[in-house]
């Protein structure tokens, strides 16, 4: 007798732990039926429910109470019940609502992807590519803000922000003292610091990793390169503050930036400290583990970095070996 509950998402049944959210149950199945999420971040407690892109239809509440839920629900914040049946991409209602949410998220977004550092790994870009329409019905001036520097390494460009609150949760949950938050109300609300105070703590850089769009960017990487020209490599170092497990983004011999290791949903495995992120940008600081696998759907994988010999790999026999297999597989295809 297992304690697990059965939930059916788009006709696929999966057994999950009680208390799992619909979104996480869908992630256990994987594939196309995983609802997109802009604000939910599994490592941040209390996140989610705000962007409404993960709306799904619950066509059967549970085995005990089979009534459907009256409204679409945010799958990231709705727990599964035994026997629940959920429709995501099989429900036209959900697709329609998601289209609406994407349109609404984009009406005040500058769409300045050509000059945005986030382009290529931006969730809003992916989302609008999949669910958006080609033109806009919004004819008014878009909301704009001045760029502000919060700390010497991080720039906040509020114009691009979709107010997912992730960076606020990061500051609440992994740093000692939160000095930034939401000011204002409604569509005038903005992320800001207390009277433009700088964010200064050892883990502040993680707000860059969690930001789904290009609102919070790394000033040390700013305008250095497009992400799809850089090559991600997993590396670690002995760090007294964090686990030191990172992804280095190479261009030639040079480490252009350091981020946490992001999975296919853009969520980092471990949060990293600012020393690892901003101050250790030499190959000699790191022990290289191997190329970071990026989902084949991402534009970053289009430069086939996994198959080409990075300069840094040439000197490391283990990496040469690891890379050979990749290279053979790719050339066979």
């Amino acid at each position, binding site marked *: 007798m297992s304690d697990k509950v059965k939930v059916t998402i788009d006709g696929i049944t999966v057994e999950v732990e009680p208390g799992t959210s619909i979104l996480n149950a869908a992630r256990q199945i994987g594939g196309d039926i995983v609802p997109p999420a802009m604000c939910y971040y599994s490592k941040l407690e209390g996140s989610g429910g705000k962007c409404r892109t993960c709306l799904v239809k619950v066509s059967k509440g549970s085995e005990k109470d089979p009534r459907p839920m009256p409204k679409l629900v945010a799958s990231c914040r709705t727990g599964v019940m035994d026997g629940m049946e959920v429709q995501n991409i099989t429900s036209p209602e959900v697709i329609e609502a998601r289209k609406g*949410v994407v349109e609404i998220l984009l009406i005040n977004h500058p769409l300045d992807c050509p000059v945005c550092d986030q382009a290529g790994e931006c969730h809003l870009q992916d989302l609008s590519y999949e669910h958006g329409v080609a033109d806009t019905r919004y004819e*008014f001036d878009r909301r704009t803000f001045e760029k502000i520097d919060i700390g010497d390494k991080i720039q906040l460009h509020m114009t691009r922000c979709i107010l997912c609150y992730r960076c606020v949760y990061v500051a609440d949950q992994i740093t000692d003292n939160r000095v930034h938050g939401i000011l204002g109300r409604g*569509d005038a609300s903005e992320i800001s610091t207390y009277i433009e105070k700088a964010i200064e703590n050892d883990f502040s850089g993680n707000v860059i990793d969690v930001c789904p769009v290009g609102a919070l960017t790394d000033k040390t990487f700013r305008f250095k390169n497009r992400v799809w020209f850089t090559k991600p490599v997993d590396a670690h170092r002995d760090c007294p503050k964090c686990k030191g497990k990172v992804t280095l983004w190479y261009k030639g011999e040079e480490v252009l930036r350091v981020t946490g290791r992001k999975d296919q949903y853009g969520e980092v495995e471990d949060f990293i400290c600012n020393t690892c992120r901003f101050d250790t940008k030499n190959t000699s600081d790191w022990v290289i583990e191997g190329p970071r696998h990026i989902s084949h759907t991402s534009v970053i994988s289009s430069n086939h970095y996994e198959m080409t010999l990075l300069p840094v790999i040439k000197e490391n026999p283990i990496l040469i070996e690891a890379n050979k297999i990749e290279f053979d597989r790719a050339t066979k295809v």
Partner: protein
Amino acid sequence: MARKLLLENINVPGIHTFDVYRQHGGYRSVEKALKTMTPDAVVEEVKTSGLRGRGGAGFPTGMKWSFLAKPEGIERYLVCNADESEPGTFKDRYLMTHIPHLLIEGMIVSSFALGAKTSYIYVRGEMMPQIRILERAIAEAKNAGFLGKNILGSGYDLELYVQPGGGAYICGEETALIESLEGKRGNPRIKPPFPAISGVWACPTVVNNVETIAAVVPIINDGGEEYSKVGNGRSTGTKLISASGNLNKPGVYEIELGLPVEEFIYSEEYCGGIANGKRLKAVVAGGSSVPILPANLILKTINGQPRLMSYESLSDGGFQTGSMLGSGGFIAFDEDQCIVRNTWNFARFYHHESCGQCSPCREGTGWMEKVLHNLENGHGKMSDIDLLVDVSKKIEGNTICPLGDAAAWPVASAIRHFRDEFEWHITNSKTAMEQNYGLAKYADPLPKLEEAIQN
């Protein structure tokens, strides 16, 4: 003269003071409940009465109370929602200003029923005079032994606090109110968990409207059975209606639920007809967030029945031809009022009051406001009308809290019923700046249902 349960003594001079209120039978219900009844008996009595929440949603109060989780050793709280800020609604402010002890009496009985030892009255920040009035009334009641330790020797302790809000419409939503009460930013919480399980400081909490809590007093005094005889069908008891707009006698009226809308507007006892001898064009029956109805549909339902002031009758016909009782903010528009301008005004309000937490409401309310502003000022296009309907559909039902719905309904309903006027604003944009569309056919008798089907 219909029977009044809440405002019976409203005209007695000095009723806002404890002594006068007590002389007129005040605090009887506290004595009755604390000395002769168990908390469960009070809840049962409220259930029997069929009282429904007076804040807007109309959820049965007794049922809400019985959902309250009662784990051992954890405090429970009762919070009175006095963050009344719906445009067109001003009944709670009236009640708190003139007869504050009624609310406090209701709070004591309700807190006793729920086993709350600390209760809060969350008052909107702008209502500073009412906050002072309530605090004074609480001090008087405490002085007379109706609050504090061991009330009337029954062993029941209750502390009652007034908490001023920051003045945001969104803080009238119960979970946003709880956040605000805790001293945080007033963003609605994602439900579940519901406040009955985890509310103020993660403790079980009940949030009730001022009028709901005040209505507990006559229920306990006369018994739930007696209260349920007042009213009509499942809409029991009396309701405070804040009548405003182009009426001869706007103001707060206590009506027995089930009163015909026509009688409410035109009888001398209530609003006394439309001001300046004009004709009625439209009515918003329950505060700005409920669908607006043209004159013919507010007086009669689509089936030709007279429309009554009750939860059921006003929502008869669903969103196609009906509206809602909501919080009882009754706004009447005469033939010279512009529905487009009014819709824009409502949209502007919701745009300003959206908390900005979830995307459809944050961006959608602003979008609708801008489009309506264009329409009203003669820059509209025909496609804008369908755009508004579409945007309102994208907001409705997809948000965390009901503010999204409340912003979408007035726009959608105004276009549904007054599409001619919107189109006229576009085709005659110059004329529309100088004069109004007028009454048109909005007060014409409804077509017979059979004919409508044939067409």
